[in-house]
């Protein structure tokens, strides 16, 4: 309760400072609207469904691309951890591409796939895949070899050992890779949506860019807030429960 209260006080203070800066007249209101104007915009766009529609489009792209990234990344990481040859080839590639900000894929994506959903998915996959691959690889390498030995003495064969011992044992690493992959995917998708007008769907990034074109900064800030809130909610709803479960099992993460 005390923690909730301190959060609330902090954010109220933040909004107050924002409002105060507006009142000083540092920037004209067209460029820096006050919190009430942004609130008005959010209220109106929630009522007419703009935000809802755009979030739906964006989240579909995000979850589809991210899902594909995970489905490809985990087996890829298992392969790089298991086979020296794949480690020296695909592993190096993954390491290199992970350092490449995935927004760099946007120009190629447009040329290859045009102004379609495929470009969006491509960018999101490129953003998440390598983080997941590398953390899976890393997690598997950090599994104490004695786990696999113990499993073998209990009669576990290769496949069973991989699915029931090595993967669960690497879960903390894989999860942190998934979180990083999520953050990369989210950033790169926003960049892609701002750069590329896609005819098949109007995402949050495009609503934001549209706001800039219309010189409607209340819209820009409003959409930014929505993006932040979605990120927070996903973290709390998707990752936090899994993290808590892992901490409870492993006995880690206690202050």
């Amino acid at each position: 309760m005390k923690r909730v209260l301190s959060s609330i006080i902090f954010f109220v203070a933040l909004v107050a400072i924002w409002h105060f800066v507006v009142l000083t007249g540092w920037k004209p209101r067209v460029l820096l609207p006050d919190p009430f104007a942004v609130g008005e915009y959010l209220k109106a766009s929630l009522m007419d469904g703009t935000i809802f529609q755009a979030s739906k489009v964006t989240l579909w792209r995000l979850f589809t691309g991210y899902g594909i990234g995970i489905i490809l990344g985990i087996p890829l990481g298992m392969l790089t951890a298991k086979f020296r040859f794949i480690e020296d080839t695909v592993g190096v590639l993954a390491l290199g591409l992970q350092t490449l900000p995935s927004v760099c894929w946007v120009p190629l994506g447009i040329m290859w796939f045009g102004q379609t959903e495929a470009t969006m998915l491509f960018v999101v996959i490129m953003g998440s895949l390598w983080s997941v691959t590398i953390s899976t690889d890393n997690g598997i390498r950090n599994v104490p070899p004695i786990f696999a030995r113990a499993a073998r003495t209990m009669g576990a064969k290769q496949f069973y050992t991989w699915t029931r011992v090595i993967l669960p044992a690497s879960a903390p690493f894989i999860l942190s890779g998934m979180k990083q992959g999520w953050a990369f995917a989210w950033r790169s998708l926003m960049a892609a949506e701002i750069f590329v007008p896609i005819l098949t769907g109007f995402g949050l990034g495009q609503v934001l860019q549209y706001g800039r074109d219309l010189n409607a900064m209340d819209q820009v800030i409003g959409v930014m807030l929505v993006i932040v809130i979605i990120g927070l909610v996903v973290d709390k709803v998707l990752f936090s429960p899994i993290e808590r479960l892992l901490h409870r099992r492993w006995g880690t993460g206690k202050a």
Partner: protein
Amino acid sequence: MPIKEELYFVPPAKLRIDRVSKSFATRSGTLQALDQISLKINEGDFICLVGPSGCGKSTLLNIIAGLEKPDSGETLMDGKPVTGPGRERMVMFQEPALFPWLDVLKNVLFGLKLKPNLNNKERREVAQFYLRLVGLEEFAHANIHELSGGMKQRAALARCLAPNPRVLLMDEPFAALDALTREQLYGDIQRIWAERKKTIVFVTHNVREAACLGNRVVLFSPHPGRVREEFRIDLPHPRDINSVELAKYASRITRALKGYENSPGTEMAE
């Protein structure tokens, strides 16, 4: 009732180690870990392999387990050669090697899940039986990190016993525990050996521990690893590690060990 059958004692197995040699490549050349080791282990023996580190006793245990292959020679269980790990020979390691993502009961169930001819209800019953045997029935749903070192080794023991192996291979299982906990476990393992009728091969560098537990104590010397001498401990079980007779055996064994060591063996001392 298959559950009765499952919990029924399986006869302990006899083992024969026949001229087993094993060497490892190290940076400074080849290390002869085991040199022509032969050893007969009878049904229901509690045999302790003692020697300084580097004498190959753990390597021999891994070969019996089927986790490693000898360069030459072979291990026979009831006349059949050991070709790989198997449920009838379970290994308990120095580290508990319990899986932190599973609770205590599910850890014990892990090996049972791979055992055919049991349904899940029966598996749970079997697992609970062994948790009771090691005194952990109240911790069935505890997470691994919540257990003390001694409790972890008890859980590991239950996990090893659950598939009802005929041979139990123990690789310094109590070395990392404090003295008090260790003494409790000496009592437990002697009781379980008597109750469950297993052949136990127990590796240790602690002479008193070996004298306390084994009916046979086999001494190894290093570089290359060889069997040097065997002691029979003719004291009735359960034995108290602090008893005077046991101390006499232990000092005889220690003297023998020091006799064929080139450098003074500090590692022998408890």
